[in-house]
């Protein structure tokens, strides 16, 4: 019951927005290059989908996934260094933070000069956009260990490697997955904007081209495809989380019984409101 309602509610909302949008475009005779109607966007998706949009999507998808993978690898290495090395944390962490204030789009041309007109600079840009929130999440997770737990592992003579894999890492998993979800959507954004500079293919490039040519309907069609991409990636990460953390979804078998104050027979008559209150 609740699940169907969870799915139905956003669908109804989207449907209402689309109907309002469609009506507004026709009612106020808005030009298609300013704001195309949803039906027009759907038409373009069908007519240009297989021929133009999806081949470009394949290129962008490759950049998204490669950049995401690179971001994950970099984030984990950095996080372990930050957690275990005071020198690294003091020396390098401020530089990483500072690097986040530089707009990626500004360093994109430099990367193209270094690596050429291929997917490598775009994968790097995708990774740059996605790695930082993931690193913050992983560091937070790895540091979330209870000092009492660490002391307990010391009494068991656990090695540092055992402490990492059997204590710190499992404790960090909820934070890690939160970071992975944020990074998944950022990877889609990163790959798209990476194609705005020094690229001649990809969905981001197509959107940039269509914007210049006022082919606004296809711009929207491209955005819809990217949105679905991001949501799918997010969903896959959520699914992996469910598989990796079964304990977080386990239902308590012995839940503490709700405290119930016994109401004497005669008191129940004089206090009908209190008796009704315990039932809820």
């Amino acid at each position, binding site marked *: 019951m609740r699940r169907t309602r969870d799915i139905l509610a956003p669908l109804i909302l989207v449907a209402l927005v689309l109907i309002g949008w469609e009506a507004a475009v026709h009612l106020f005779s808005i030009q298609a290059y300013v704001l195309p109607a949803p039906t027009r966007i759907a038409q373009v998706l069908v007519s240009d989908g297989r021929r133009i949009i999806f081949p470009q999507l394949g290129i962008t998808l490759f950049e998204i996934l490669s950049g995401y993978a690179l971001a994950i690898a970099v984030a984990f290495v950095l996080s372990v260094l930050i957690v275990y090395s005071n020198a690294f944390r003091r020396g390098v962490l401020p530089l990483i933070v500072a690097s986040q204030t530089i707009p990626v789009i500004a360093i994109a041309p430099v990367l193209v000069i270094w690596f050429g007109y291929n997917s490598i600079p775009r994968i790097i840009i995708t990774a740059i956009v996605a790695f930082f929130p993931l690193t913050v999440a992983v560091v937070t997770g790895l540091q979330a260990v209870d000092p009492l737990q660490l*002391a307990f*592992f*010391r*009494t*068991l003579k656990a090695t540092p490697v055992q402490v990492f894999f*059997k204590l710190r890492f*499992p404790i960090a998993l909820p934070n890690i997955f939160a970071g992975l979800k944020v990074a998944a959507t950022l990877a889609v954004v990163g790959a798209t904007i990476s194609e705005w500079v020094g690229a001649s293919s990809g969905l981001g490039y197509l959107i940039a081209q269509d914007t210049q040519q006022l082919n606004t309907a296809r711009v929207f069609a491209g955005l819809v495809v990217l949105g679905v991409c991001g949501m799918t990636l997010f969903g896959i990460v959520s699914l992996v989380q469910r598989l990796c953390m079964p304990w977080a979804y386990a239902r308590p*078998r012995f839940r503490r019984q709700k405290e119930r104050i016994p109401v004497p027979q005669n008191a129940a008559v004089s206090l009908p409101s209190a008796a009704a209150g315990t039932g809820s």
Partner: protein
Amino acid sequence: MIDARLHISGLHCSFRGTDGDRIEAIRDIDLSLRPNEFVSIIGPSGCGKSTLFNAIAGLLHPDTGTILLDGRDIVGQPGHVAYMMQRDLLLDWRTVLQNVTLGPELAGAPLKEARAHARMLLKRFNLEGFEDAYPSMLSGGMRQRAALLRTILCERPVILLDEPFGALDALTRASLHEWLLGIQREFRRTMILITHDPEEAVFLSDRVYVSTPRPMRIAGVVDIDLPRDRTHEVKLSPEFAEHERQVLALLRSEMPPEAVDSGVRLQ
């Protein structure tokens, strides 16, 4: 004492406070336990009892003093005694079976044998049928029993129990007391219990050490002269009441007088 399992003498512990001064936590403690004895340490909260356990467990270095386990010096060396801390510290992501075999697993013992051994003991710990449950599915009493099974399976001769039943309700606690005594006799472990509860201390122990407020010293020792096979009915006997009275009198003598007069409870 030559036949002592655990022998502590002249133990002093202090640590640096937040303002840089040295805070004396433990002053000149002597303790001696024979094999398979059950001994309690009772005292006001914050008196340094946990510091004493941390020193025995090798987690902190005392200023002076010796700690001998079967005649061997274990000062500053973790891993010689099993330590059950105030919270059960079960790992949420592991099932009951995976939790209780943590000790052998970290020691590199063959997992299959450890699991088989644990499965055999689950029934004795009233956890049968819960081997694949996660700790979040268990009640407070079940969690403590799982934590104790994990401690037993560490296979150490001495077990330190730091207020293991503090967070449980009175009924659950009372039922666990009798059961714990049975476990202690059956598995032949030497146990030291930290507690705030005189009744718990008298019921479980062969001997009760009463400690002073910080810095912690031993104010007195009460030998519990009750049969070793005890049931909860022993609590109604005059001997039990007399032992409890002795413990309380020692505790009171070490409390600041105004605290006693105003009826401040020993927590």
